[in-house]
């Protein structure tokens, strides 16, 4: 997936001289995850830059550059680091269009690596969509593999709004044959049906998409798996259409349970389709704890395919919310 990202960046930079890129160690070193391989060489140091360690400073600079005509793409190496810079994204960038009566646009893309699974510990393993998804003026997309990373990133760069593009770190090493070019661009705001099915709709984002698909494979029930792709704005039509067919909704999310985006999706569907559902909409998530270090613990922390399948199976069987695995540990 890191190669797909570098390809998307290169393709947009070729197509539009206003696209520039900066972040920590993204130029000479080509990014800690090699997501900008070749870019400095191809586009030179005016357009591809290393920054000091100062997320507030360079995110702010990106806001200023975007407001005055460029299309900056910046990298927040681990999404936690936006905790020192959120102001620039949410309180400034997301409000500039409004606060300029529409005369200014902020075509800014903020890429951030997210998620657990590589043993980076609790300050480098979260997804944190929840810091950003309740803020009007921002868009937010999440890659679930090489093709979606490529397609969504190109749309994010072209979009005239600040777009946060989250990239699950465990997927960087994923390789796949894929198309590039115009046809591979994925519009923001549209979900993808990753797998069709009849009995239950699984809605996932990012690294949980492959897990949801794995859970669905070979299960005794038939699951439709929706890759939400864009969380803000999310594709309400696609959700309602799928659940109208399956009558059951399960969100699969890499976040602590409380306050995660799954609550929005389930709340929305529960509100719209009251009386039409055959089971409660449920959320399969991580427990309300910090991301642990240690290979096994981290894998236990994450919703793995086995656990997802168990939860879905139990839901279908009982028509009630199955207990979370961690209830035993409380």
């Amino acid at each position, binding site marked *: 997936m890191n190669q797909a990202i570098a390809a998307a960046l290169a393709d947009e930079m070729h197509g539009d001289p206003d696209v520039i890129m900066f972040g920590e160690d993204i130029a000479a070193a080509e990014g800690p995850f090699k997501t900008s391989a070749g870019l400095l060489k191809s586009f030179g140091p005016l357009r591809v830059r290393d920054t*000091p360690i100062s997320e507030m400073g360079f995110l702010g*600079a990106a806001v200023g*550059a975007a407001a005055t005509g*460029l299309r900056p793409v910046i990298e927040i190496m681990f999404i936690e680091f936006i905790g020192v810079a959120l102001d620039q994204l949410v309180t400034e960038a997301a409000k500039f269009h409004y606060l300029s009566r529409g005369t200014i646009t902020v075509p800014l893309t903020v890429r951030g690596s997210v998620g657990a699974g590589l043993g980076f510990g609790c300050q480098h393993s979260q997804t944190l969509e929840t810091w950003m998804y309740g803020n009007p*003026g921002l868009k937010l997309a999440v890659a679930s593999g090489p093709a979606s990373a490529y397609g969504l990133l190109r749309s994010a760069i072209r979009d005239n709004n600040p777009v946060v593009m989250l990239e699950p770190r465990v997927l960087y090493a994923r390789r796949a044959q894929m198309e590039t070019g115009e046809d591979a661009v994925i519009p923001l705001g549209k979900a993808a049906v990753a797998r069709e099915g009849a009995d239950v709709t699984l809605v996932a984002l990012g690294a949980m998409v492959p897990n949801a698909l794995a859970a669905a494979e070979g299960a005794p029930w038939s699951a439709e798996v929706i890759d939400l792709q864009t969380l803000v704005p999310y594709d309400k039509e696609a959700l309602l259409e799928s659940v109208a067919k399956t009558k059951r909704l399960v969100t699969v999310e890499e976040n602590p349970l409380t306050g995660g985006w799954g609550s929005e999706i389930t709340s929305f569907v529960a509100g719209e389709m009251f009386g039409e559902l055959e089971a409660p909409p449920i959320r399969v998530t991580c427990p309300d704890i910090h991301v642990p270090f240690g290979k096994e613990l981290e894998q236990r922390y994450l919703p793995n395919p086995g656990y997802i399948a168990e939860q879905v199976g139990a839901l279908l069987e009982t028509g009630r919310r199955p207990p979370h695995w961690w209830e035993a540990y409380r």
Partner: protein
Amino acid sequence: MTFLEHRRKLQTSRPARYEAMCEIRAFEDRAQALFFEGLVHGTTHTSQGQEAVSVGMAVAARPTDWVTCTYRGHGHALALGMDPSVVMGEIMGKRIGSVGGVGGSMHLCEVSVGLLPTFAIVGAGIPVAAGAALTSQVRGTDDAAIALFGDGAANIGAFHEGLNLAAIWKLPVVFICENNHYGEYSRIDLTTPVEDIAVRAVSYDMPGHVVDGQDVDAVSEAVGAALARARAGEGPTLLEMKTYRYAGHSRADPGAYRPEGELERWKERDPIAIYRTRLIEEGELTPEEAGDIEDRAARRIVEAEETAAGSEDATVADMFRYIYAP
């Protein structure tokens, strides 16, 4: 008068600078009164006493340069050439307001005069100005950017990060600290261990200068030199304007925390009075002409208020516009 004519006049005519300062003073006095009379909702931050900074900056800047400033932005907006009825309209929540009346006093913006959305978060405009300068650098133009911020803002992280980034990338930006000696209710010496903010330029290997912020000519000269340096590719400059705000921090603040006599001492160095005397002494104005200018400025603000007050309120539908760009 278009804003371009206004800016050209500022550049070429010292009486025009005098008039611009009088206009700001009249505007701010009236804005403050509107709040005290309860005619306007919310809060406001006025800049009486700091007019020379606004006007001197606008003299030096090109219309194609970008400017970021703060919630204390009326003066800068007017100096750059925004119509006073548009600023007043915003304060009053009118559709003719600079942001259509949905922003309020802290939120002005006018792309044509180079003013980016003003910042209600302390320090936030500093890296954003660096980013505007980056656009010039990438595109190879010789436009520059200016960030205006307060003494209090010099203690926040965005100041440090913004100046450092601008220095290492040699961005064409001028950082103007308006040191009015207070951040809200706190005198600078309670929050800042150095007397001159300008010394902080040392941390970024950047030139730093203290400037008399009550002298519009000194301001325009210093900003002009720093902009020339920026346009020549020599990087950023930090300028500290020593100045003072006559009013309290915001609508709610009578400024009671100020030591006795301080306000009066500063008023002896009033930027408008200083300039009036100078222009008369140097034969550029007669007292009568000065009086005419003052009257004209005052009248323009009265008219601007009438225009704004008589115009349409922002509507509920306006709240929903411009959340996302197409």
